[in-house]
Protein backbone atom coordinates (compact mmCIF):
# COMPACT_ATOMS: atom_id res chain seq x y z
CA UNK A 1 0.00 0.00 0.00
CA UNK A 2 1.34 3.38 -0.88
CA UNK A 3 1.38 6.01 1.80
CA UNK A 4 1.59 9.46 0.32
CA UNK A 5 4.56 11.65 1.18
CA UNK A 6 2.20 14.12 2.83
CA UNK A 7 0.78 11.42 5.09
CA UNK A 8 4.24 10.18 6.05
CA UNK A 9 5.38 13.67 7.00
CA UNK A 10 2.22 14.21 9.02
CA UNK A 11 2.76 10.88 10.79
CA UNK A 12 6.38 11.73 11.55
CA UNK A 13 5.49 15.19 12.80
CA UNK A 14 2.78 13.79 15.04
CA UNK A 15 5.18 11.24 16.51
CA UNK A 16 7.79 13.91 17.23
CA UNK A 17 5.17 16.05 18.95
CA UNK A 18 3.99 13.13 21.07
CA UNK A 19 7.55 12.42 22.15
CA UNK A 20 7.89 15.98 23.38
CA UNK A 21 4.78 15.84 25.51
CA UNK A 22 5.67 15.76 29.20
CA UNK A 23 5.27 12.33 30.76
CA UNK A 24 3.81 12.07 34.23
CA UNK A 25 6.54 11.07 36.68
CA UNK A 26 7.30 10.84 40.33
CA UNK A 27 10.37 12.97 39.75
CA UNK A 28 8.56 16.21 40.55
CA UNK A 29 7.57 15.25 44.09
CA UNK A 30 11.09 14.03 44.78
CA UNK A 31 12.66 17.20 43.39
CA UNK A 32 10.25 19.29 45.46
CA UNK A 33 11.18 17.42 48.62
CA UNK A 34 14.89 17.91 47.96
CA UNK A 35 14.44 21.58 47.01
CA UNK A 36 12.45 22.23 50.19
CA UNK A 37 15.35 20.83 52.22
CA UNK A 38 18.25 22.43 50.32
CA UNK A 39 16.63 25.61 49.02
CA UNK A 40 17.89 24.68 45.55
CA UNK A 41 21.57 24.59 46.52
CA UNK A 42 24.04 22.23 44.86
CA UNK A 43 24.82 18.95 46.55
CA UNK A 44 28.24 17.33 46.77
CA UNK A 45 28.65 13.66 45.93
CA UNK A 46 30.70 12.73 48.95
CA UNK A 47 30.53 13.15 52.70
CA UNK A 48 27.41 11.10 53.21
CA UNK A 49 27.11 7.34 53.24
CA UNK A 50 24.00 5.21 53.07
CA UNK A 51 24.14 1.61 54.27
CA UNK A 52 21.14 -0.42 53.15
CA UNK A 53 20.54 -3.92 51.76
CA UNK A 54 20.72 -4.36 48.00
CA UNK A 55 17.68 -6.60 48.14
CA UNK A 56 14.96 -6.04 50.72
CA UNK A 57 12.95 -9.18 51.23
CA UNK A 58 10.18 -7.40 53.06
CA UNK A 59 9.26 -3.94 51.84
CA UNK A 60 7.51 -3.26 55.11
CA UNK A 61 10.71 -3.02 57.06
CA UNK A 62 13.92 -2.14 55.26
CA UNK A 63 16.85 -1.19 57.51
CA UNK A 64 18.78 1.92 56.53
CA UNK A 65 21.75 3.62 58.10
CA UNK A 66 23.04 7.10 57.24
CA UNK A 67 26.26 8.75 58.34
CA UNK A 68 27.61 12.20 57.50
CA UNK A 69 30.39 13.51 59.76
CA UNK A 70 29.82 17.18 60.39
CA UNK A 71 26.17 17.20 59.34
CA UNK A 72 23.46 19.18 61.07
CA UNK A 73 20.63 17.14 59.59
CA UNK A 74 20.06 14.29 57.17
CA UNK A 75 16.89 13.79 55.14
CA UNK A 76 15.92 10.48 53.54
CA UNK A 77 13.44 10.18 50.66
CA UNK A 78 12.15 7.14 48.84
CA UNK A 79 11.75 8.15 45.21
CA UNK A 80 9.36 5.37 44.26
CA UNK A 81 6.93 5.58 47.16
CA UNK A 82 3.50 7.29 46.89
CA UNK A 83 4.95 10.02 49.11
CA UNK A 84 8.72 10.47 48.97
CA UNK A 85 9.36 11.55 52.56
CA UNK A 86 10.86 8.96 54.91
CA UNK A 87 12.32 10.96 57.77
CA UNK A 88 14.74 13.73 58.69
CA UNK A 89 17.32 13.41 61.44
CA UNK A 90 18.26 16.68 63.17
CA UNK A 91 21.35 16.32 65.36
CA UNK A 92 21.40 18.34 68.58
CA UNK A 93 24.28 19.64 70.66
CA UNK A 94 24.63 16.34 72.54
CA UNK A 95 24.58 14.07 69.51
CA UNK A 96 27.53 11.68 69.76
CA UNK A 97 27.88 11.36 66.01
CA UNK A 98 26.03 12.29 62.83
CA UNK A 99 24.89 8.76 62.30
CA UNK A 100 21.49 7.13 62.65
CA UNK A 101 19.73 3.88 61.88
CA UNK A 102 16.07 3.23 61.23
CA UNK A 103 13.67 1.01 59.28
CA UNK A 104 11.46 2.20 56.43
CA UNK A 105 8.70 1.01 54.12
CA UNK A 106 9.40 0.74 50.41
CA UNK A 107 6.57 0.19 47.95
CA UNK A 108 8.75 -1.27 45.21
CA UNK A 109 12.28 -1.42 43.84
CA UNK A 110 13.56 2.15 43.79
CA UNK A 111 16.31 4.62 44.56
CA UNK A 112 16.52 5.93 48.09
CA UNK A 113 18.16 9.36 48.30
CA UNK A 114 19.72 10.88 51.40
CA UNK A 115 20.64 14.56 51.59
CA UNK A 116 22.81 15.91 54.39
CA UNK A 117 22.97 19.54 55.45
CA UNK A 118 26.44 20.28 56.77
CA UNK A 119 27.33 22.67 59.57
CA UNK A 120 28.87 25.09 57.05
CA UNK A 121 25.63 25.30 55.07
CA UNK A 122 26.70 23.03 52.21
CA UNK A 123 24.82 19.89 51.18
CA UNK A 124 25.79 16.36 50.27
CA UNK A 125 23.75 13.69 48.53
CA UNK A 126 23.95 9.93 48.28
CA UNK A 127 21.74 7.41 46.51
CA UNK A 128 21.13 3.71 47.14
CA UNK A 129 19.20 1.42 44.81
CA UNK A 130 17.18 -1.12 46.73
CA UNK A 131 15.37 -4.03 45.11
CA UNK A 132 12.12 -4.90 46.85
CA UNK A 133 10.51 -8.29 46.46
CA UNK A 134 7.31 -7.67 48.45
CA UNK A 135 6.11 -4.06 48.49
CA UNK A 136 5.44 -2.41 51.83
CA UNK A 137 2.74 0.15 51.30
CA UNK A 138 -0.23 -2.05 52.06
CA UNK A 139 -1.60 -1.66 48.54
Amino acid at each position, binding site marked *: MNISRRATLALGGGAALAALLPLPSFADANDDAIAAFTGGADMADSGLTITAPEIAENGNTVPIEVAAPGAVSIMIIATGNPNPGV*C*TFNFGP*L*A*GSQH*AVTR*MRLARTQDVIAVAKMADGSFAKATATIKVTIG*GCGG
Partner: protein
Amino acid sequence: MADNVTPRVRVPRSAAAGEVITIKTLISHIMESGQRKDGDGNVIPRSIINTFSCDFNGQNVILVNLDAAISANPYFEFDAVVPEAGEFTFTWNDDDGSVYTDTKAIEIA
Protein backbone atom coordinates in the same frame (compact mmCIF):
# COMPACT_ATOMS: atom_id res chain seq x y z
CA MET B 1 -5.41 7.38 70.30
CA ALA B 2 -3.38 4.44 69.02
CA ASP B 3 -3.72 1.40 71.25
CA ASN B 4 -1.07 -0.31 73.31
CA VAL B 5 1.70 2.10 72.47
CA THR B 6 4.71 0.93 74.45
CA PRO B 7 8.10 2.59 74.23
CA ARG B 8 11.22 0.50 74.78
CA VAL B 9 14.60 2.11 75.17
CA ARG B 10 18.09 0.68 75.56
CA VAL B 11 20.63 2.96 77.23
CA PRO B 12 23.83 1.82 78.97
CA ARG B 13 23.58 2.05 82.74
CA SER B 14 26.80 4.01 83.10
CA ALA B 15 29.42 5.74 81.00
CA ALA B 16 32.66 7.64 81.42
CA ALA B 17 32.27 11.43 81.43
CA GLY B 18 32.33 12.62 77.83
CA GLU B 19 31.92 9.14 76.40
CA VAL B 20 29.82 8.53 73.28
CA ILE B 21 27.16 5.87 73.81
CA THR B 22 24.73 4.21 71.43
CA ILE B 23 21.04 4.45 72.21
CA LYS B 24 18.40 2.22 70.67
CA THR B 25 14.72 3.10 70.82
CA LEU B 26 11.61 1.25 69.77
CA ILE B 27 7.97 2.11 70.18
CA SER B 28 5.06 -0.18 69.33
CA HIS B 29 2.86 1.82 66.99
CA ILE B 30 1.00 0.70 63.90
CA MET B 31 2.06 3.79 61.88
CA GLU B 32 -1.03 3.80 59.69
CA SER B 33 0.37 5.20 56.46
CA GLY B 34 -2.84 6.44 54.88
CA GLN B 35 -2.31 4.13 51.91
CA ARG B 36 -4.39 1.17 53.09
CA LYS B 37 -8.07 0.62 52.42
CA ASP B 38 -10.51 -1.11 54.72
CA GLY B 39 -12.96 -3.86 53.75
CA ASP B 40 -15.42 -1.36 52.25
CA GLY B 41 -12.79 0.28 50.10
CA ASN B 42 -12.48 3.42 52.20
CA VAL B 43 -8.99 4.77 52.75
CA ILE B 44 -7.84 4.30 56.34
CA PRO B 45 -6.61 7.77 57.31
CA ARG B 46 -2.98 8.37 58.16
CA SER B 47 -2.15 8.20 61.84
CA ILE B 48 1.54 8.02 62.58
CA ILE B 49 4.12 9.19 65.03
CA ASN B 50 5.44 12.33 63.37
CA THR B 51 8.23 13.41 65.72
CA PHE B 52 10.71 11.71 68.01
CA SER B 53 13.19 13.54 70.19
CA CYS B 54 15.80 12.60 72.74
CA ASP B 55 17.03 15.11 75.32
CA PHE B 56 19.59 14.80 78.08
CA ASN B 57 19.41 17.08 81.13
CA GLY B 58 17.48 19.59 79.06
CA GLN B 59 19.77 19.57 75.99
CA ASN B 60 18.70 18.01 72.72
CA VAL B 61 20.50 14.95 71.40
CA ILE B 62 18.45 14.23 68.30
CA LEU B 63 15.14 15.26 66.77
CA VAL B 64 13.61 13.08 64.08
CA ASN B 65 10.75 14.15 61.79
CA LEU B 66 8.98 10.99 60.66
CA ASP B 67 6.89 10.48 57.53
CA ALA B 68 4.53 7.67 56.67
CA ALA B 69 7.35 5.63 55.13
CA ILE B 70 8.87 4.81 58.52
CA SER B 71 8.03 1.19 59.32
CA ALA B 72 5.50 0.18 61.95
CA ASN B 73 7.04 0.03 65.43
CA PRO B 74 9.51 2.80 64.64
CA TYR B 75 13.10 1.95 65.52
CA PHE B 76 15.89 4.47 65.89
CA GLU B 77 19.53 3.97 66.80
CA PHE B 78 21.83 6.94 67.35
CA ASP B 79 24.79 8.14 69.43
CA ALA B 80 24.83 10.56 72.34
CA VAL B 81 27.59 12.24 74.30
CA VAL B 82 27.31 11.84 78.09
CA PRO B 83 29.00 14.85 79.71
CA GLU B 84 27.72 14.12 83.24
CA ALA B 85 25.33 11.90 85.13
CA GLY B 86 21.70 12.58 84.39
CA GLU B 87 18.57 11.46 82.67
CA PHE B 88 17.64 10.87 79.04
CA THR B 89 14.10 11.85 78.09
CA PHE B 90 12.51 10.33 75.00
CA THR B 91 9.39 11.87 73.47
CA TRP B 92 7.20 10.60 70.63
CA ASN B 93 4.43 12.81 69.19
CA ASP B 94 1.46 11.18 67.49
CA ASP B 95 -0.63 12.69 64.67
CA ASP B 96 -3.67 12.45 66.94
CA GLY B 97 -2.04 14.68 69.55
CA SER B 98 -0.92 11.95 71.95
CA VAL B 99 2.53 12.27 73.43
CA TYR B 100 4.43 9.21 74.64
CA THR B 101 7.50 9.55 76.82
CA ASP B 102 10.13 7.43 78.49
CA THR B 103 13.14 8.28 80.60
CA LYS B 104 16.39 6.51 81.43
CA ALA B 105 18.94 7.58 84.01
CA ILE B 106 22.65 7.13 83.45
CA GLU B 107 25.55 7.29 85.89
CA ILE B 108 29.11 8.29 85.39
CA ALA B 109 31.40 5.32 85.91
